[in-house]
């Protein structure tokens, strides 16, 4: 009898489990069967519609800006019923489970990805919006992006740090923070060929110097010499990983009194120098240290050419908002220190605008750059937009990724298929990171905002994502190791005594012994 009761109870419990499971599956599983189709796209924030999605990106969580009592979200690839993500939620916040998301992306590379959004109104009727259509790219994006987080202030600083975000998930970690160095300023982090093992950044104020990280070794160098007008400022790693081109600058800034403008940052003078990590020596050439203002260097991927921008000599008579930069290049053999002839790539006279932040794609085909009505420090200029120059045809064009707000600093992925750029389009105040896909013929796709676990994150986050650099893996050197080196006195860089430049250029000082 006891056995009979036991089996009855087991069957009864089994039935309950089956019923519950079935109910559960029905509510979140097969989806909504009765609904009205709407001929409109749902409003979602961030805008993840008609974008190219990297196959290794973190879930694109979003907010549905449509009023509803309940929401049903169905994420699926084309002709694929096996890999669906179904979310039933009473809030308009859509948090996509990361494992399922990764699965769907990896199995459907090169295919379309649909997001179907259903909404239950106050009468209990379901409505379905038009499907959001995106495409999953075949090519992955670099796994990490490094950036500096700073407040919107212009002159002072307090909390500041260089961070890295794993864009394959939502992990953000510290590379280095000024909490470890008495709140000093740090800036201009840069990597060699997207390699997280070869990096540099500057430290200012207390513990000043430039930190070089290469293959686990950390060194702190004072790149300022009595022959140069400043320590190294804007960096560009030579592909050999042993040389860095720096600009040296006399920077000025001013604030506008009228409401449509905020700040002007520019130079009174600037030149370009090259620092050799192995010999700890700085050199330059009269061709890149002229009375004109040479700035923002960048190497071609083969390391044979140095690209940079060049503006007219500063005079007090010239209005700061009329100063425009051209795009130049010069051949340079860093081993022999042999410099070729200057070559003008694109002039401000041709474009009518000032060129800034030239970045050559790793495949050597394109230059991605900014243009604004004046100057080069584009992060504060609403006129700044992104442009592309085809190095084969020398044709340039404005990218469709631009908005009417600031688009500024950018960085290519290792495979030249993606780039990240900063833009203030979201809240007009803080720079945020956007990713965009570039196909093999140079078509640039609609950009999308770097996803966050909480899609409301950006609403009240008051820090700028500054100098985004894509890197293929995390920076492994610990902040502890960096701090130990940072606290040491810097090693003084030497200036190449064979270089002879007119000291009156107004740029590099030549106070030779």
């Amino acid at each position, binding site marked *: 009898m006891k056995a009979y009761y036991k089996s009855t109870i087991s069957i009864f419990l089994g039935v309950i489990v089956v019923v519950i499971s079935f109910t559960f599956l029905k509510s979140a599983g097969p989806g909504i069967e009765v609904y009205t189709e709407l001929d409109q796209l749902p409003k979602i924030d961030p805008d993840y519609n008609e974008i190219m999605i990297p196959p290794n990106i973190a879930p694109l969580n979003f907010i549905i800006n449509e009023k509803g009592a309940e929401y049903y979200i169905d994420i699926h690839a084309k002709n694929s019923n096996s890999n669906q993500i179904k979310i039933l939620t009473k809030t308009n916040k859509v948090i996509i489970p990361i494992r399922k998301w990764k699965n769907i992306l990896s199995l459907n590379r090169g295919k379309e990805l649909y997001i179907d959004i259903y909404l239950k109104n106050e009468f209990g009727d379901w409505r379905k919006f038009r499907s959001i259509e995106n495409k999953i790219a075949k090519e992955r994006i670099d796994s990490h992006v490094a950036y500096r987080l700073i407040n919107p202030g212009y002159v*002072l600083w*307090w909390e500041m740090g260089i961070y890295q975000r794993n864009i394959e998930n939502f992990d953000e970690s510290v590379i280095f923070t000024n909490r470890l160095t008495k*709140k000093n300023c740090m800036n201009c982090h840069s990597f060699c060929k997207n390699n997280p093992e070869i990096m540099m950044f500057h430290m200012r104020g207390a513990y000043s110097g430039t930190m070089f990280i290469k293959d686990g070794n950390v060194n702190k160098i004072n790149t300022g010499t009595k022959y140069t007008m400043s320590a190294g400022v804007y960096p560009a790693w030579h592909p050999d990983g042993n040389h860095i081109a720096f600009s040296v600058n006399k920077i000025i800034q001013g604030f506008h*009194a009228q409401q449509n403008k905020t700040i002007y940052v520019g130079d009174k003078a600037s030149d370009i120098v090259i620092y050799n990590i192995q010999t700890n020596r700085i050199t330059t050439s009269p061709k890149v240290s002229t009375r004109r203002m040479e700035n923002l260097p960048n190497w071609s991927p083969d390391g044979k050419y140095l690209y940079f921008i060049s503006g007219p000599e500063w005079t007090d008579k010239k209005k700061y908002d009329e100063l425009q930069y051209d795009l130049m290049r010069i051949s340079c053999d860093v081993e022999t220190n042999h410099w070729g002839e200057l070559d003008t790539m694109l002039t401000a006279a041709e474009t009518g605008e000032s060129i800034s932040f030239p970045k050559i794609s790793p495949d050597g085909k394109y230059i991605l750059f900014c243009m604004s009505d004046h100057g080069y420090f584009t992060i504060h200029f609403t006129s700044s937009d992104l442009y592309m120059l085809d190095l084969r045809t020398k044709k340039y064009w404005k990218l469709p990724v631009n908005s009417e707000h600031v688009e500024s600093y950018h960085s290519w992925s290792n495979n030249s298929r993606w780039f990240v750029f900063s833009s203030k389009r979201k*809240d*007009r*105040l803080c720079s945020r990171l956007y990713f965009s896909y570039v196909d093999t013929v140079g078509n640039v796709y609609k950009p999308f905002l770097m996803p966050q676990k909480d899609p409301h994150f950006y609403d009240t986050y*008051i820090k700028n994502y500054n100098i985004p650099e894509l890197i293929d893996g995390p920076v492994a050197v610990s902040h*502890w190791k960096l701090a130990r080196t940072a606290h040491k006195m810097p090693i003084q860089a030497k200036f190449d005594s064979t270089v002879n430049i007119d000291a009156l250029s107004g740029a590099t000082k030549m106070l030779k012994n």
Partner: protein
Amino acid sequence: MKLKGIIRNPNCYFLFFFLSLYFYFLLVFDSAIYYHYYQPIFLFDRTFLKEFLLYPGGLIEWIALFFFQFFYLNWLGSLIISALFLTIFIAAYKLIGKIGNVKPALILAFLPVSLLLVLQNHYNFPLIIAVKYLFSLIFLLLYIKIANKYMILLIHLSGVIYYILGGWGYLFYIALCILYELLFSEDSKKFIYAGFNMVICFLYPYIAARYLFAITLTEAYIYIVPYELYYEPILFKPTLCFYLSYLSLPVLMVTIFVYSKYIKTELKHRTKQLSRWQHLLIQSIIIILVGIFVLEFSYKQEEKRKIQIDYLAEQGQWKELLALSFEIDKYDRQVNFNVNRALYHTGQLLDDLFNYPQLLGTDGLFIDRILGSQIAIPASDIYFDLGHINASQVLAYEGQTKFKYNPRILKRLVLTNIINGKYIVAKKFLDLLKKSILHRKWVKYYENCLFNKSLIESDNLIQSKRELRPKFDFLINCKNPNYDLIWLLKANGNNKMAFEYLMAYYLLECKMGDLIQHLRKFRDFGYRKIPRHIEEALLLIEAMSPPDIDINFNEYSISPHTVEEFRRFNKILLQNFKNDVKAKALLEKEFKNTYWYYVRYINPKQTNIMLKERKIDESLL
């Protein structure tokens, strides 16, 4: 009998202590002033919380901030702070009860409390220190209670305690634990336990700095309060009293140990024993006397008045501000600065500017010549007053860099962005402020403004500032604010404050030629008479000009009274021209609030008083 029963119960003394403290904080200290000084904010926000979880000691700071925000209301703040000190008192009392049966337990427990009260009586003393002190004591009591049974668990939990308390609080807690083990524990393994505590006291902070958190070793071991509190305006510095307050408990423990072991029995035989209620009564009388002395001795009325001045300036209560400024004895630049603003807003700037000693000249008129985040709020205020909205906004952003959640700054940024028509940016700051329960009403009003054009158009503050804004662009020049004032006037001829400040600037800089150039403007702005200090300046110009140069003031009549005063001033000066000290003393009596006196004796070009950048002792950072 009933009375004796009450007196015997120590809870009565605690209640009495609590009530006395409450009324002290309510009526004398004024918790709302303390709130104003710190401008604490607590946001119900995950990112806000996350920032506190990134370092040991952050969690407790987050908890303390939650309570600190209620200091906005004096009665509630006073209640909280009194409860905090009462709990420390009770915890110390319990500790003494646990480690030795000594009669003057109440007085002994009051010792650390009184030292903490001395510290807390200063407005720049961070509340978090008392909170951490309390938690250290609570953890110690917990340790004593369960140490014998669950020592291994406690040693593991010690890591959590370190994370909660942070460096300094943990060091304090561990020191007390070790002392307890060595002096009072009856466990046979007490030396091992003390040793364990010693080891983990070094180990956990090291692990934290080396592997877990982006903090320095110094911070890992002796972190007390957030960095920004070491800087202006708070300028927290651990004083002797601070160290004594932490030293008091270990000293007490040692004293009780020595007393219990070596003195108690001997004394018992020698002295006449008092009953328990007599003991308690005597102790409470001593506590009251010591308490009154401690509070009276450590309280700084002047500190409070200075903060009140800033509070009144924020509220726009200019007359009250001026009245209070006379009660401040020592010169203070920020008081000077706010008094000048108040003088303008009450229409007295060019008549009574020298009622307050303008020791720093134009550096009392503008405050941002040396830019620092500590002056960002007042500097933003003056530009906001002037309708120089972009300058005000730049300064607010600079302030926000250091005090990122300061509600005053966030509100300023809401306003400047609304005035500039940047509603999306304004909304961002409103969304942030909305996460604080204190500011929701303010946020609601301006949130409505963003979506209601007519509401914005009917808002006097926004409209008046919009009208004052420059109509064309120029570059802001905080080193030479007179240029900005000229530009503001050029860009908007109706900016009366810019004009008066420009005149005041010329007076303070003794730029007489520039002053004369702008005389005509007095008519344009509808002045019925020339303000007193301008009259004084004109008389001085006339007197100092070479006889062959004719300066024509016919257009402007100078009052006979001012002319007569000037004669008298000169007469005293001439009579004592060989004895300037005497001349100064005589002139000070009658003329210290005149421009002539300023030019001769106060003008920083004469006195060589200069602003200096303050150096901060960074050894603890």
